């Protein structure tokens, strides 16, 4: 039976969280049940959380082979990094 059940990726935003974080994956026959399964498996029903489920096939991932061009930061070009600003008081969540 589970062979027919596609894989879903689960993203959860906790009550105080600011963004959805990948929590894990699960098998479900459709989005509605994926949501319910995710609620049982990953949230333990703490209230006020938000759940996203996405079929795994809808996700395009970067290839490990392209790691260098993708992620190697140009450390010799510090002007590319926003490190020269002073953050004013009162700016939150930065």
């Amino acid at each position: 039976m589970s062979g027919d059940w596609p894989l879903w990726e689960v993203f959860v935003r906790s009550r105080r969280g600011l963004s959805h974080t990948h929590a894990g994956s699960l098998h479900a026959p459709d989005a509605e049940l994926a949501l319910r399964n995710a609620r049982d498996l990953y949230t333990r029903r703490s209230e006020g959380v938000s759940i996203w489920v996405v079929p795994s096939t809808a996700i395009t991932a970067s290839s490990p082979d392209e790691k260098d061009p993708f992620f190697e930061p140009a450390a010799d070009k510090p002007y590319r990094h926003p490190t020269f600003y002073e953050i004013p008081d009162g700016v939150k969540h930065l």
Partner: protein
Amino acid sequence: MVLSHRLAEWAGHAPVLEEEVALANIALDLLGQARILLSMAGDEDELAYLREERAFRNLQLVEQPNGDFAHTIARQLLFSTYQRFLYEALAGDPVFGPLAVKAVKEVAYHQDHAEQWTLRLGDGTEESQGRMQRGLDALWRFTGEMFRPVEGLALNWQKLEERWLASVTAVIERATLRVPGGPRTGAWAAGAGREGLHTESFGRMLAEMQHLHRSHPGASW
């Protein structure tokens, strides 16, 4: 408590892992409710483990064996819908209000779970539809008992039954199933669970549930 035990029997046997977690979750919710209710009446362990079958007051519906998955879902649909409306009606009750307010959130989820599966099985394949229909047909005669007035609970039982029937009918029809035609009350229906008369499989369930406690009475755990 009895339904919680029945659902716990699914542990390790559910069709898929995700569903097993869902059934276990529901069983744990129900056990939590049972603990509160039993504690209000006396010592929860004593009441659970040392009463004989004839002293149990559960509805006959909840003691019915699991059967196949569709049978379990049918039992869940019929009972969780009832529980939801019952707890909603009890929300203002001085004694049961606090429990009802907490429990209604849990049983709303149980009802949703059962409805989701009723729709999928009923409107699924020919096989799943047949099984779901057989589950509903087999359990239908146990549903009248739910609405027999319970002493000490001042509720509008008739209204409760109307709400239940309307809700269950809507789900069954959406699932392309038919509402069973058999009697829900009277000579061909069940109705004596509250008086301590139970169906055959209940005794075996209790034997398994109470075995350890009766072998080592008085032990702390």
